[in-house]
């Protein structure tokens, strides 16, 4: 039998941070409002993202009401429908998911998980949140300007985005959207620099890069992606603003609008599409990679088993991130591109399936022979795997030019991207909140409400999006306010649309149960143990829960192992925290006690 007794290890002196290097809040304003503590900033980011996300959710209800029961709601005009579609998409992708994963989870978890006191530039980190809030407020302001917000679709394609025939196209709607995006990117860059530098330079002793939890690897790679991809959106936003305000022709071709020749000429709408999707496709992974990392940790902790193929998981995250920059034009197969160009992008798109499949196999193999605890975080993690596989497989359809062309701009595409980058990451967000809520508040979320929330959300999501694939197959187009008498679409499509709407409303209201659960549990939830999930990573090894100012006690923790020491043979407990000295690990005696 292999002797698993660890060798005696020399003590490593812990790092100490001088008091003067720590940020201290001295008033209510600097403690709770203009705070530089990453944990408070994380909560500010998350709160703002959830509030604006609720706006996005209500917009989706309005869209579904129109699709399910056309000619019933007089206040939903074709123009307002397009505005709902646009604002829903942009809010959910940028202002909710990106902000929540990187600004929310990133801020809360990075310093704690790598064993740092705080982010390396706390002041810039604070500014990052306030610029993000400004971006959100500018976006919200567009609802109240004459003509309302833009209805150009979340892709904001020119020339229609800045023409008067498009809702918000000739007024302030599109301008405010572009300005808001520019501010979002500026704010994110401030935060992103913090995340990357903190992970690279401020880890505690013994925390090598390959000892970091996969959550941190996911957030790190996603941040690098975002820092490199958002500039494309920034440049296109500037150029489109100039086209709209000053009348330049970066993207605007010669065009006649309502019988009038406009002063534009010679611009290239396709150029915008390239720039937009050079940002847009990595954006999928900016959302997905943190989810990949978090779900890896949830699975490992709640299955009491080390993550299968850790190093492969790290490299798969990095490979997916790198490949995400060479697939963008698969969003543009119907733009009239050279077939060889399409062939190239179809090939790179399918290659991404390889590292992605490695991750799915490794998640599954992590569960294999694990001591699976069907806690709520685990339920959401398993639901993520299933949903991500479903959404990923339809991606293989759409990645092929010949299959994509007939399916382009149909409900099939809507179903695909909602499954893969809407529902799947949101399931991880929920799982993560159930997992880390005890750390953030010292209390547990209500289990019964949590299970109700899980099952309604999970089953409901499938009731919404599975039928939507069939609608796409029969040719129901996306972004249409009404089908009217479209001969090639069967009447049953209307029934299916009504069914989807009812399911969407039910799932939407289940989220209110979740929010109620959070609000009640913050104050009246059952007090949690210090480490209720018996996790090994550093965020659970703080002196107090919730972690206090400066995260750790006077001395920073010293790390002796990776974050996946579960069910280690020969040890008494089924987990060994990262910071427990090897000499202090409780071992089973030779008699088996």
């Amino acid at each position, binding site marked *: 039998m292999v002797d698993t007794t*660890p*060798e005696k*290890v020399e003590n*490593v002196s812990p*790092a100490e941070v001088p008091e003067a290097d720590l940020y201290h809040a001295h008033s209510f304003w600097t403690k709770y409002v203009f705070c530089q503590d990453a944990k408070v900033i994380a909560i500010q980011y998350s709160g703002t993202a959830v509030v604006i996300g609720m706006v996005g959710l209500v917009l989706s209800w309005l869209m579904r009401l129109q699709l399910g029961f056309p000619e019933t709601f007089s206040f939903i005009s074709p123009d307002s429908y397009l505005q709902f579609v646009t604002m829903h998409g942009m809010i959910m992708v940028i202002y909710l998911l990106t902000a929540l994963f990187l600004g929310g989870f990133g801020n809360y978890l990075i310093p704690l998980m790598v064993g740092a006191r705080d982010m*390396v*530039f706390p002041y810039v980190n604070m500014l990052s949140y306030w610029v993000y809030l400004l971006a959100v407020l500018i976006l919200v302001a567009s609802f109240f300007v004459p003509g309302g917000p833009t209805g150009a679709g979340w892709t904001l394609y020119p020339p229609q985005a800045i023409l008067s025939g498009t809702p918000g196209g000739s007024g302030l709607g599109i301008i405010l959207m572009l300005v808001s995006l520019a501010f979002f990117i500026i704010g994110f*860059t401030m935060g992103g*620099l913090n995340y*990357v*530098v*903190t992970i*690279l*330079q*401020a*880890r*505690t*002793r*013994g*925390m*090598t*890069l*390959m*000892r970091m939890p996969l959550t941190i690897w996911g957030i790190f790679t996603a941040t690098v992606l975002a*820092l*490199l991809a958002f*500039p*494309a959106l*920034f*440049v296109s936003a*500037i*150029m489109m603003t*100039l086209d709209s305000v*000053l*009348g*330049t*022709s*970066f993207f605007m071709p010669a065009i006649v609008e309502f019988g009038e020749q406009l*002063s534009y*000429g*010679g*611009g*290239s709408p396709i*150029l915008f599409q*390239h*720039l937009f999707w*050079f940002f847009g496709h990595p954006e999928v992974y900016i959302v997905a990679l943190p989810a990949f990392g978090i779900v890896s940790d949830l699975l490992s902790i709640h299955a009491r088993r*080390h993550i299968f193929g*850790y*190093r492969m998981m*790290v490299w798969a995250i990095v490979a997916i991130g790198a490949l995400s920059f060479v697939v963008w034009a698969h969003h543009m197969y119907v733009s009239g591109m050279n077939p060889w160009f399409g062939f190239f992008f179809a090939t790179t798109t399918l290659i991404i399936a390889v590292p992605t499949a490695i991750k799915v196999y490794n998640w599954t193999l992590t569960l294999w022979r694990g001591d699976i605890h069907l806690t709520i975080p685990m339920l959401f993690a398993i639901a993520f795997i299933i949903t991500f596989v479903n959404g990923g497989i339809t991606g293989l359809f759409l990645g092929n030019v010949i299959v994509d062309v007939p399916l382009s701009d149909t409900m099939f595409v809507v179903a695909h991207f909602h499954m893969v980058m809407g529902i799947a990451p949101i399931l991880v967000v929920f799982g993560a909140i159930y997992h880390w809520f005890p750390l953030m508040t010292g209390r547990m979320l209500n289990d019964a409400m949590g299970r109700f929330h899980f099952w309604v959300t999970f089953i409901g999501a499938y009731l919404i999006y599975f039928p939507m694939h069939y609608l796409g197959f029969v040719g129901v187009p996306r972004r249409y306010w009404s089908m009217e008498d479209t001969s090639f679409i069967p009447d049953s499509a209307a029934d299916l649309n009504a069914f989807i709407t009812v399911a969407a409303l039910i799932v939407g209201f289940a989220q209110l149960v979740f929010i109620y659960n959070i609000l009640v549990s913050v104050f009246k939830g059952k007090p949690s143990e210090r480490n209720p999930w018996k996790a090994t990573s550093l965020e659970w090894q703080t002196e107090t829960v919730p972690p206090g100012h400066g995260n750790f006690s006077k001395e920073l923790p*010293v*790390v*002796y*192992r*990776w974050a*996946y020491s579960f069910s280690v043979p020969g040890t008494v407990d089924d987990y060994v925290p990262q910071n427990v000295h*090897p000499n202090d690990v409780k071992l089973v005696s030779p008699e088996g006690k």
Partner: protein
Amino acid sequence: MEFFREIRGKPWLESEDAINNAQLGGSIAMPPVRLALRIFVAVVGVVFSLSVVAYSDRMLLADWKPVPEPTIMWLNLIVLIASSVAMQWAVVGARRDRSSQLEAGLLIGGACSLAFLAGQLLVVRQLDALGYFAPTNPALSFLYMLTAMHAIHILGGLFVWARTVFRLWRGVEVEKVLMTTELCAFYWHFLLALWLVLFVWFVIT
């Protein structure tokens, strides 16, 4: 432990424990603020690279009309080079603890940068006076946009430069502004390199 060695690690092997336990924290041998500036510069580089790609793509379309470069653009280039050299001279002064050289370098560098910005404004006014107007000519639209973006980045640098000069005037020791001065110089060199690329691009197209 260096970055590339770290990412080859196998944390589950006990045989690697001793090496991993010796890890002191950071992966790249430089202060966080220096690394942050390098990453920021990379991000700005991506912004300008994509703009140049867009420029070259837009050039292929039929309505592209070349624009003459006013002579003052060459003068501006010389002034920007001077500001970069002055910043480097300030760094040398700071490293040798010569406060007068540091102050002179910073002041000359800042003054040259302001002169460059004023010169760029003159370029726009000259082109305007010659009858060129941005919306009617995509080449000019790009020139104006890239010039403005570059100028905004210089203004950002001047904000940090002003803080450094202010600290020196308040009597802060040279040693305490060494890092900021080095960062300013690095940023100025980057902005010079960026403008050189843009300038050459404008001239050859």
